[in-house]
């Protein structure tokens, strides 16, 4: 009698500490799935002075870039070698001409929020993603468009992204206010406030 084992928890050297490999793509959500058609979706980026709004066509006008990356959820699963297509956040910031402010508060359709440092949005691979593995992004996974910040735990990659406010002062988002880490680097295992 083997006793309870839970799901097989496979390990891989590319994975951050405390993570297990998964082959499916678990759907995590703190509320109802937002179902938006591409026509209804738009993204506003503002620093309070300069403001830009991108609709579906406006976003696609920049051309989609392909990114293959690993993703890590704070609930301990990781998925390796996922392929996404989207537009780099830094491209959109440049177009809007936002000021050099230190923090960003990201808001989703449905009211979810998460906070990031602007450098995490512009200096690495962060994108507004619209395709996953060659298909339009499903609503359960944040489609039509989500933020993807692959070097941080996935709660930072807000689904159904609608707004990015660049601000002078950091404000905790939904999970950050509930006790999760402000930065959320999986390789430093920054899961909870104080880690």
């Amino acid at each position, binding site marked *: 009698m083997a006793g309870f084992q839970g799901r097989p928890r496979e390990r891989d050297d590319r994975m951050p500490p405390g993570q297990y490999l998964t082959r499916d793509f678990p759907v995590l959500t*703190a*509320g109802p799935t937002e179902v938006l058609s591409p026509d209804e979706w738009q993204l506003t980026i503002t620093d309070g002075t300069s403001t830009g709004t991108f609709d579906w066509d406006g976003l696609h006008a920049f051309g989609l870039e392909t990114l293959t990356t690993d993703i890590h959820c704070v609930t301990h699963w990781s998925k390796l070698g996922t392929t996404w297509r989207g537009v780099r956040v830094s491209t959109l910031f440049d177009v809007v001409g936002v000021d050099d402010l230190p923090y960003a508060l990201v808001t989703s359709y449905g009211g979810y929020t998460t906070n990031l440092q602007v450098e995490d949005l512009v200096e690495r691979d962060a994108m507004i993603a619209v395709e996953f593995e060659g298909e339009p992004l499903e609503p359960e996974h944040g489609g039509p468009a989500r933020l993807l910040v692959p070097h941080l735990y996935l709660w930072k990659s807000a689904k159904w992204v609608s707004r990015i406010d660049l601000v002078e002062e950091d404000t905790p988002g939904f999970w950050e206010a509930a*006790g999760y880490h402000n930065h959320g680097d999986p390789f430093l295992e920054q899961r*909870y406030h104080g880690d």
Partner: protein
Amino acid sequence: MNHYVDGNAVLGAFSLALGTDLSEGSLECAGCGSSHAIAQTRVYLRCPGMVLRCPECGGVEVVIVEIDHRLNVTLSGVLALRVAPPRASPTR
């Protein structure tokens, strides 16, 4: 598409966190003002915590996160928490 269960599922954890039995407890939603049993809230468990939403307006009332075997509770969407059941007819 809406992966919620009823508030009963979190009564154990919520009661432990607040140190009193909330089995017959009720919440008054800060968003819409409605009162309802904790058991009637819509609870999302497939996420990094437990999220209790108002059955009337869908707003977030309570978020419970277990951190190193401690329970962190935020009551940001709650106007009042009563340990007793709500009054007979909930206000809308």
